[in-house]
């Protein structure tokens, strides 16, 4: 999967959680939760969505690494190519 395909997949899951958000304005290096007003329950739904779509289960210890969009893409890229 290319990084662009990954980005589309991640944004697709985010769109389900925050359908009203303009994801083209998402700052790639800032925390997703702050930008989209995502609470802990919605963050769980986000990670469950990522797991269903990409079959990557992000453990709690790695939540910091996936806080931003670029962080998430880097993390998924590493996990999927490992």
């Amino acid at each position, binding site marked *: 999967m290319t990084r662009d395909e990954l980005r589309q997949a991640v944004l697709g899951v985010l769109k389900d959680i*925050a359908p*009203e958000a303009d994801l083209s304005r998402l700052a790639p290096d800032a925390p997703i939760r702050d930008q989209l007003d995502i*609470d802990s*329950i*919605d963050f*769980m*739904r986000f990670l*469950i969505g990522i797991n269903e779509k990409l079959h990557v289960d992000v453990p709690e210890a790695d939540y910091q690494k996936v806080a931003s969009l670029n962080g998430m893409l880097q993390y998924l890229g590493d996990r999927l190519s490992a």
Partner: protein
Amino acid sequence: MPALGADMTAGRLIAWLKRPGETVTRGDIIAEVDTDKGVIEVEVFTSGVLEKTLVEPGAKVPVGTPLAVIREAGGTPAPAPTPVAVPTPEGRAPVSPAARRLAAELGVDPAAVRGSGPEGAVTLEDVRRASGKGVRGERMRQAVAAAVTRSKREIPHYYIGHTIDLGPVTTWLAEQNRDRPVARRLVHSAVLLKAVAVTLRDFPELNARWVEGRAAPIADINVGLAISLRDGGLVAPALHHADRLSVDELMSTTLDLVERARAGTLRSSELSDPTITVTILGERGVDTVYGVIYPPQVAIVGFGKVVQGAWVVDGGVVVRPLVRATLAADHRVSDGHRGALFLAGVADRLREPGRL
């Protein structure tokens, strides 16, 4: 038409999901209605055969209007109330030019919209609703406004707070979550909800409804969880029998409720059954929640942000994850002393989350 909140006066039937002659079982979803709280699935509270429907799709009727007659298993039908006369749409529904224009603007196919106007005509509101933009949030705002206005006018609130050391809960959650797949992981909210629900067993005066000048305690503990919707609304559907659900079950039920609250597919009983509300508002840095009771309930419990703070243990200062729990309660029904004992009970239970 079920009352799905203290201030709901009417609802519009959208569709029947069962046909006359079909067997229905208590808990089945038989219809969808459109209300201030969005589209709600209506359940039946008896088992039997759907004898006939009394309200046609598209009709708006007052709360309390019978929607259908159900012949109970082995019995006679419930007394048939007067049917409500409504126009039955024939053929394709008419669409006004204004509605057609708006539909084009919003990218909605007017032929696919269920009309609610005279003779099933597609109205501007129908088009807006079909587009999913605007209307729901606006109407829900009005419903919330009516409920909180009544609350602040009629209910003499008292407010108390209690800071709780969540160290044991945080440690327990980290242990639990370490080996769990993401779909089965827990968050603080599930543990807080469980502690509140179990503690309420000892405080029936907080798990009650104020009806006709007096408090009526409710045997079931149905905790309404305040969920803010992304288009600006607020709903607090029930976690039924929350005291009897495990923390895992509370977590999965919460995820399901949030998902369906956002999708607008809550069930009628979930909106009508809460006996108390819990609101967890810490996500954006709120320390302390001063809740507004949702009538006819008599109490609301709030939790703020879990923060690292100084805490005294055995005469020494340590850093611990702390949360501020608050209670706003109806002073006609309970006193601050009982409320204080309740919050202390919640704090006690959170000391040993493994036993919840």
